[in-house]
């Protein structure tokens, strides 16, 4: 009776999975930065970046379909960049009017939009490979290693831990509601109530969940205090990084630097 779908980690035995989480974390951030810094319309570099992430996907054995499927999540956010098609000055390609408005599609605007879409799509894939190949505790260790504040990492950890509890509670609430959503034997009755009534019920459930989350956080805090928590997050020292990991980190960063250099040089 638990919810598992929230956990993006997929266990496989692969080179990417066995790589030190710190190396993966730094390389992913560097990859996303490189992609973001690549100028727009640098098509050959986009292809190389895509090839890089495709290689990582293949090595991770997660399956190209899996990663590309999840990467589709990036598309709704790409819509935010849609206005640049019409707002950027440049040679006009076509124009059309909606009511009193006339919208002109410019070539540079279209190029910018496609660049933004491709860059976010490629970046999301990198994040997906990282999250699917690294267990969350390792990811937190990596964040600590690169200097993310300990309190922030602790908050991530608590959120991760209790997100599942919250999802389970929501599931139980929905179940309890379903259990009482019956149909009377009398004919001619409209089942299900009005839309506003249902919205009220859903609102009540959301409020209920919030109150419970709030109270639980109090109890968790008290349990932490009871075991000596004084506001300072203490953590075990990090294990040393092996030579192989340093090599992977160095070569990965070198590849990204070359890609970035190509993007500006071309």
């Amino acid at each position, binding site marked *: *009776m638990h919810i*598992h779908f929230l956990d993006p980690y997929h266990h496989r035995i692969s080179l990417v999975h066995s790589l030190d989480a710190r190396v993966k974390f730094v390389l992913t951030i560097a990859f996303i930065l490189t992609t973001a810094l690549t100028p727009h319309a640098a098509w050959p570099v986009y292809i190389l970046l895509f090839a890089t992430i495709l290689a990582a996907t293949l090595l991770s054995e997660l399956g190209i379909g899996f990663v590309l499927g999840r990467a589709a999540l990036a598309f709704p956010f790409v819509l935010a960049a849609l206005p640049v098609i019409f707002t950027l000055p440049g040679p006009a390609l076509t124009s059309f009017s909606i009511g009193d408005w006339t919208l002109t599609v410019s070539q540079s605007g279209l190029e910018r939009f496609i660049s933004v879409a491709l860059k976010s799509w490629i970046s999301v894939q990198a994040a997906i490979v990282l999250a699917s190949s690294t267990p969350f505790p390792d990811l937190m260790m990596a964040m600590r290693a690169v200097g993310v504040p300990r309190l922030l990492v602790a908050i991530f950890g608590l959120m991760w831990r209790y997100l599942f509890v919250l999802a389970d*509670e929501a599931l*139980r*609430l929905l*179940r*309890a*509601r*379903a*259990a*009482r*959503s*019956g*149909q*009377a*034997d*009398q004919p001619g*009755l*409209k*089942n*299900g*109530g009005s839309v506003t*009534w249902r919205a009220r*019920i859903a609102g*009540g*459930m959301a*409020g*209920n969940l919030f*109150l*419970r989350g709030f109270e639980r956080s109090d109890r968790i805090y008290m349990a932490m205090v009871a075991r000596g928590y004084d506001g300072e997050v203490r953590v075990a020292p990090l294990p040393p990084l092996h030579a192989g990991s340093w090599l992977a980190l160095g070569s990965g960063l070198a590849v990204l630097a070359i890609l970035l250099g190509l993007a500006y040089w071309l």
Partner: protein
Amino acid sequence: MHHSIEVDDLYFAYPDGRKALQGVSLHIEPCEKVALVGPNGAGKSTLILHLNGILIGKGLICVAGLPVIKSNLGKVRARVGLVFQNPDDQLFSPTVYEDVAYGPLYQGLPPDEVQNRVSEALETVRMADYSRRVSHHLSVGEKKRIAIATVLSMKPEVLVLDEPTAGMDPRARRSLINLLRDLPITMLVSTHDMLMVRELFERMVIMDDGRIVADGQTEVIMKDEALLNAHGLEKP
């Protein structure tokens, strides 16, 4: 004449592969009150969730003469009152009144009928003064009674309770036992409270590892200490 609860050869596995029910068969007569006992993880809650179609496994289930299948779920849920273990799950509306009225309102009953059902249900659990109270601030015992009222307002034929006395003080427990004794309705109660089982239920069913391992007169089963011990239970 139908049985109130008929379960035949029910199998269910959770998506993670854990086999929770492995061929459960259980028949309960109208107005019979039966206790369902067994260790944690025996499959009691899983079985209970099947009686109302929240979970659907492999096998035959009829409740109040209706097969529990997708197309019948609305009718089945009106006939089977399921009281969850944690009353906080059951009470999702801001006030007691709205929670007790949920079932009848969902069924589309006319307003005066809803009003009658709510008053009657709250009267039955002796909580008539609480209808304007905020569920969130009630005690565990009070919440439990309200949770029972939320299904009584649907006038169910069968009442299914999951660990009703868990976490209650002796007085709240006593009044709940009296309430359950007085309700003239078919009842299946999952519990660890062996004293209550002995006091309230003539028939008991022991589940362990997804199977029913004993089903019979409480008086007889309670004497079989070896059987109780084998399934993690204690003679009261």
